[in-house]
């Protein structure tokens, strides 16, 4: 039974042409990034000051940057960090958002009031500005592992500022689900609140959570790139697609490729993920599919 459901969902996903194209492109990029040592001939940190600002050529597919480093290698290794930050912040956002949404939808009353107020507070802060302040805070901590270009603190910070839409979504579904017969029946035979929430309600909210996790991943990649571009995210020399773009503005005249390629990678990956999310929405929510 479960297999047929999965197969039906998969078949509906395949019908969304752009989603399939997006998934394939994403898969290729992820593979290239994982096997970066084989896909790139140069070391991403190796400087070659005699060959600064080389335009794209058979030797350097995407040219070289201001220190003569190979752009293609830096893009692949930078992709590891960019995608990891995106994944980690998405996981943080989904876990926090699902918990907040479940609790406030399930218990209602004062729990709901308090959690909803907290959600509103997070929604009414100027997000990018607070991200910069937090980035400034992280840098002032002077922790050795942040200086070494570690990405976990930044990823967690981004996640903590982007769980609100998941929370609202899960809260709405939980409110509706907790009145359903199967939940009432489970409660009558003595299921605990924990069991009701995590065994009966949560699995039924999985579809919208998966869709918003996909879109959240795209958003987190954009957030990281913006933050690192401004110099408040992952610190150089560790490359990410965002910080590769910082300080490139004065090179635009002589080496436009240093500006074009990192951003193009962000754009391609994000649009591929967004199309995937679109396809997943159609596949997981048949009502949505028939209406479109």
């Amino acid at each position, binding site marked *: 039974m479960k297999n047929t459901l999965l197969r039906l969902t998969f078949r509906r996903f395949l019908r969304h042409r752009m989603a399939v194209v997006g998934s394939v492109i994403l898969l290729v990029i992820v593979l290239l990034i994982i096997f970066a040592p084989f896909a790139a001939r140069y070391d991403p940190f190796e400087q070659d000051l005699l060959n600064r600002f080389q335009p794209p050529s058979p030797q350097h597919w995407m040219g070289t940057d201001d220190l003569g480093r190979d752009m293609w290698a830096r893009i692949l290794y930078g992709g590891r960090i960019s995608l990891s930050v995106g994944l980690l912040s998405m996981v943080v956002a989904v876990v926090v958002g699902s918990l907040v949404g479940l609790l406030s939808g399930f218990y209602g009353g004062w729990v709901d009031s308090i959690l909803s*107020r907290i959600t*509103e*507070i997070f*929604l*009414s*802060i*100027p*997000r*990018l*500005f*607070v991200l*910069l*302040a*937090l*980035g*400034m*805070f992280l840098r*002032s*901590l*002077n922790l050795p592992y942040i200086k070494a270009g570690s990405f976990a603190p930044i990823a967690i910070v981004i996640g903590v500022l982007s769980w609100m839409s998941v929370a609202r979504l899960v809260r709405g579904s939980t409110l509706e689900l907790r009145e359903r017969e199967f939940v009432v029946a489970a409660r009558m035979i003595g299921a605990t609140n924990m069991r009701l929430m995590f065994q009966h309600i949560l699995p039924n909210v999985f579809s919208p959570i998966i869709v918003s996790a996909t879109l959240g991943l*795209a958003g987190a990649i*954009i957030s990281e*790139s*913006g933050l690192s*571009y*401004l*110099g*408040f995210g992952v610190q150089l020399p560790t490359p990410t697609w965002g910080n590769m*773009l910082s300080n*490139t*503005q004065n090179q*635009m*005249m002589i080496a*436009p490729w240093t*500006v*074009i390629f*990192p*951003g193009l990678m*962000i*754009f391609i990956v*994000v*649009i591929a993920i*967004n*199309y995937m999310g*679109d396809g997943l929405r159609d596949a997981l929510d048949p009502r949505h599919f028939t209406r479109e």
Partner: protein
Amino acid sequence: MTQYLIRRLIQSVLTLFVISIILFGLISSVPGGIMSAYEENPDFSAEDIARIEAKYGLNDPVPVRYAKWVGNILKGDWGNSFVSKRPAIQEVKDRLPNTLILMGSMLVVTLLIAIPLGIISAIKQYSLFDHIATTIAFAGQSLPVFWFGLMLIIIFHVTLRRPDGTPLLPGSGMVTLGAPPSLGDRIEHLILPVSMLALVSAAGYMRYLRSSMLDVIHEDYVRTARAKGLRERMVLYRHALRNALIPLVTLVGLDLPSLFGGALFTETIFAWPGIGRLYFNAALKTDYPVVMAVLIIYSALILASNLLVDIFYAVLDPRIRYS
């Protein structure tokens, strides 16, 4: 209605209060105190730092400092910028008009693009136009806005030239330095920064309006309007569009945080002397009074716009009950 408004107003003020506590707590919990940024600065000796900390009461417990800080703000004193030594609030005030010009023009252009495209796409659903418009909008929503700005500079400032060899469009600042002030010059300087933000946010608004228009078109009252023999134009613009625009108003109001964020990128990239750039530089130099002033003022503006949206919504849509 009045009761509802008063309650919402009190709620907003309380929310702002909580936000200010969180932000203040965050900034004050920097290890080593907020002067720690100057520890490695050769211009400041350890005694200097100790003297400054004593003078400004930086060694007091956090709640005491918070109370003092709020008290001063209520008196209109937001502290002096560490960098320029001028009052932080004056720094913000000086740049507010520039940011308003940028964001205002951007919002107008966004709506001028998004509303017509959204309507046409919805009315001609699944037409070639609809497919192209929604695809472009989808791509626009996936663009990193700062990179899009850099691309605009590469294309319209670096690559494309006027016949006399000067750049086609200015790539930084609000006016040409040294040139006599003119409206044309100011508008030229607005084109790229505004396009960068407007094209990206128009994508989201257009998709949103399209789907809310599609929802409305299938409502009973639209069918009724058609059934009583109204012309299609009347049905679409008088009955459908009016209702489809209501959610768009909400969206614009609730989108303020991302508009502020977009403006920060624009102002940094195009050297636009606004609040975003002020904030960016303040954060780089750990200029806490300015950072806090901008954070609190922007949070207050966002809360105010949320409140306005609620009021607007209640006035526009008589179905909403104020409970």
